[in-house]
């Protein structure tokens, strides 16, 4: 393997890691005596610069990604949907870093920012990975970072408890994932996604499908944990509630984007299984099968996979939305709503297209969702710091105590509920339209109908919060101020949610520009 090529493909990751080390050096070396907020500011600035450098480095990546030596199979992809996910991860990382400003849950600022950056590195890696081993390493890099971030509020028992839960669940699901991977390797003799897909297609002939199901269920368990899909979601409410706000926002946005980027990578590999192999001329039936009706064949990879994912998707959106109705803590409510949103997105993963429609719809959804949740967590953290809790009642009469914050919450929550003209609505529409474009059968249609019905349910719990924010009188009249910078970031996110919602073409053409060179 040529290390120069490897270096060229991983330029953004390298930039992030350099920034992470730099943060540590500056914070621990030069700023030991400085005030906490100064240190936070310095660390955040370096982190933001690192993310900026990573984005700037992306055009210099090797165009087509990195292949195995002596083969055309990809090890790491670059460009296209991978690039969109990576830019998205970096931008959302920047926003979560801004949430750190003004917080005081930890004195170890340098470590916090460094861990955030390293976890983002893991995220970048899994968005690009095309090999089981790279996927696993990237996932662990991301996950280990998240466990640490969750536990970062050392004075809070909840933080420690939730981190422990998260870690135990995470360890178990990693074991499942590895177990599934080992089956896939055993069945196909390769760790490369394309080879695996092709090998599994051959399995049809050899009728080894039960083993494929076992392997894919295991993989789905591992990845379902990352996206918090039912029944692998148990960590989510506790983690969202216990983790310090920037960490929770990071888990809810960046980690989700990376995990769905990984699912997109897998889906793309499955759909393009015949593209890269030499001598595909005799495989015309295969190609024909994938261009007309990809899901009628319940074998190979795509059939079992979409069945499993569709089941998880329905379970997630039904359970997530119904459980959210009963929540009294806004963070837990956001956690259950995140489970529901993951369910919607998984529909598009189950019905994945050969062209980039599905990939774009998923990325559009998860990126805008990440943006919105970061804003929501930022707003919740301000209320929490002054009101002392994230209970619904802490939000009473917010419109009187901080009008801007109330407006921010209204816009963001309505966007999560999918009310036009906010961006959450377009994301949903885009996603469901993509599902129906892939397959117009009864099953996908019924699934979309369930999803739409469930999003009608979700309006109730979002309105429960907004009712307290905007309708009910305050219990306590004191103003509720956040730091001007945080408020600025929140206002910016809100404006973005409105503008992207009113002009949905903006983001679509931005995403299309990534495919231009391909």
């Amino acid at each position, binding site marked *: 393997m040529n290390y120069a090529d490897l270096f060229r493909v991983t330029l953004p990751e390298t930039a992030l890691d350099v920034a992470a080390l730099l943060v540590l050096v500056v914070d621990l070396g030069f700023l030991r005596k400085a005030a906490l907020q100064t240190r936070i500011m310095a660390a955040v600035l370096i982190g933001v610069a690192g993310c900026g450098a990573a984005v700037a480095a992306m055009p210099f990546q090797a165009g087509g990604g990195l292949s195995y030596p002596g083969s055309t199979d990809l090890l790491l992809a670059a460009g296209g949907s991978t690039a969109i996910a990576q830019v998205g991860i970096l931008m959302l990382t920047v926003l979560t870093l801004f949430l750190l400003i003004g917080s005081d849950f930890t004195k170890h600022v340098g470590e916090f920012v460094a861990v955030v950056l390293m976890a983002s590195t893991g995220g970048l890696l899994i968005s690009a990975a095309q090999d089981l081993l790279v996927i696993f390493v990237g996932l662990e890099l991301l996950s280990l970072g998240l466990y640490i971030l969750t536990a970062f509020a050392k004075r809070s028992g909840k933080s420690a408890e939730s981190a422990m839960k998260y870690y135990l669940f995470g360890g178990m699901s990693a074991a499942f994932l590895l177990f599934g991977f080992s089956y896939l390797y055993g069945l196909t003799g390769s760790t490369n996604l394309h080879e695996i897909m092709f090998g599994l297609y051959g399995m049809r002939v050899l009728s080894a499908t039960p083993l494929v199901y076992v392997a894919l269920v295991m993989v789905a368990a591992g990845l379902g944990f990352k996206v918090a899909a039912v029944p692998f979601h148990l960590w989510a409410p506790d983690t969202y509630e216990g983790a310090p706000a920037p960490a929770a926002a990071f888990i809810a946005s960046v980690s989700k984007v990376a995990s769905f980027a990984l699912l997109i990578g897998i889906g793309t590999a499955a759909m393009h299984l015949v593209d890269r192999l030499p001598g595909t001329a005799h495989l015309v039936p295969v190609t024909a099968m994938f261009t007309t009706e990809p899901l009628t064949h319940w074998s190979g990879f795509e059939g079992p996979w979409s069945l499993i994912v569709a089941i998880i998707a329905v379970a997630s959106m039904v359970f997530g939305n119904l459980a959210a109705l009963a929540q009294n803590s806004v963070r837990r409510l956001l956690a259950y709503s995140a489970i529901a949103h993951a369910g919607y997105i998984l529909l598009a993963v189950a019905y994945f297209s050969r062209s980039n429609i599905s990939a774009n719809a998923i990325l559009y959804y998860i990126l805008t969702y990440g943006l919105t949740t970061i804003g929501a967590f930022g707003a919740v953290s301000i209320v929490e710091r002054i009101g002392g809790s994230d209970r619904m009642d802490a939000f009473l009469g917010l419109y009187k105590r901080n009008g801007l914050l109330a407006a921010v919450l209204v816009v963001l929550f309505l966007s999560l509920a999918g009310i036009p003209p906010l961006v959450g609505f377009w994301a949903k529409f885009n996603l469901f339209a993509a599902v129906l474009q892939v397959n117009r059968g009864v099953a996908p249609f019924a699934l979309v109908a369930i999803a739409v019905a469930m*999003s009608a349910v979700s309006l109730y719990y979002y309105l429960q919060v907004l009712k307290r924010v905007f309708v009910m009188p305050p219990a306590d009249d004191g103003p509720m101020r956040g730091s001007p910078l945080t408020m600025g970031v929140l206002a910016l996110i809100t404006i973005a949610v409105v503008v992207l919602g009113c002009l949905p073409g903006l983001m679509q053409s931005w995403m299309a520009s990534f495919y231009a060179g391909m």
Partner: protein
Amino acid sequence: MLAWTIYISFAGALVLAVLPKGNATLARAIALVIAAAGFLIAIAGFAAGAGQGRVTIIDVPWVPAMGIHYTLAADGISRVLVLLTGLAALAGVLFSWNINLRTNEFFAFFFALIGGVYGVFLSFDLFLLFVFYEIAIVPKYFLIAIWGSTRREYAAMKLALYSFVGSAMVLIVLLAAYATSGSHSTGLVNLANADFPIGFQMWAFPVTFIGFGILAGLWPFHTWAPTGHVAAPTAASMLLAGVVMKLGAYGCLRVAIGLFPHGLDQWGWSFWGIGSWRDVFALLAVIGIVYGALVALAQTDFKFVIGYSSVSHMGFVLLGLVTLTQVGVDGAVLQMFSHGVIAGLLFAIVGRIVYDRTHTRQLAELETMYLGRRMPFAAWAFVIAGVASMGLPGFSGFVAELQVLIGAWIAKPWWTAASGVGIVIGVAYTWRALQKAFFSDRLPKPDEHPKEGWPKFDPITWPEVTATCLLFAATLIVGIYPSILLNSIEPAVKALLAGGMQ
């Protein structure tokens, strides 16, 4: 030009939202200017559009990747309903003159709602129509939950959820139609020409009709309406009954009937005379007419009487729509206008003029107040409005309901017979409310006389008089010279029923 009604309303909502708090006078003035401007534009647009068919106002690609256009256009039906919206908005602002709690926010939500309503009536892209339709949901929630009365939070949430469920049904059809048509467009005209398979139309039509019908008070999905109307502040109940319910009816006409006409075809088998979706919805509409009227007859709360009467009157609209005859659908559209004006008037009298002074709406308590003597303006106004609501000749309701009944007779005579019962009961509940609230013949006993004489109510203010006269004028003009609206409704309905929306 009509497009400016939308922009002005949303801009106004934004300005009012950021207005410094505590300056209620300024907020009112701004609101009045915006509403008046919207109304004037609506009149001008209506006048300019006379004799023309569908006029495209603007048509630019909005989401090019999905073939969604930002298409605003107006045909005769749109122009009439935009006119109604302008009128209702202006009257609503005038009747909200006494709102002192969070005044600027009230008007901000008010105009966000109005902007959405204007948008729905002018959209000629299904997607855009849906977006505006949903924009109108959220302000309603806040208007009722913050400024409402009786069980307001319950009513607001019920209204929001009902609306959202309805729009979810519409969204499902929208997605399916988009995927099925394959024309890569959501323009209403393109979809109307998309030749959807009959099987598709057979399920898409009822889902759409019920989805929109929920907001139009279609029985048995009407229960949000009375509670919502009663809980809402006066201006909001005027808008709810006046224009928001029309959004639903308009959607039923423009989208359900316009896009999926074959959904109304016969099934090929029948059960007790019901052999198509048309029969089903006609039956529901007739039940709505009679049921709404009967329930109104039994109410003890003055506002609930009006609330249920709305359900009954909207039944005529829905019945007119499913007659599928020129005269019936004309009548339905005219009834939308007429009911918008009359229901607005009734709600204003009950909610603003009476309730804000007596602080009770219980008919039993109003009976002991002798409002006929102590509040002659209200009594006069309610007599006229009540007579108009009953459908006396000379008022708009008469022309509209007559046409609906003729259309129904052409379609199936028993529809007319059954809804005729509803009209008779309508006379009964209106008289009953009128008599109990204003002209009670129960004389006060000697010990009931207050020692210092009967307390004076606050005098009637100029905004109330102005708005009442405005609405009177509208119902009278249309009642005496209905052609003023029918001339523009007829060709549009004809085109719509002919299919293809050309």
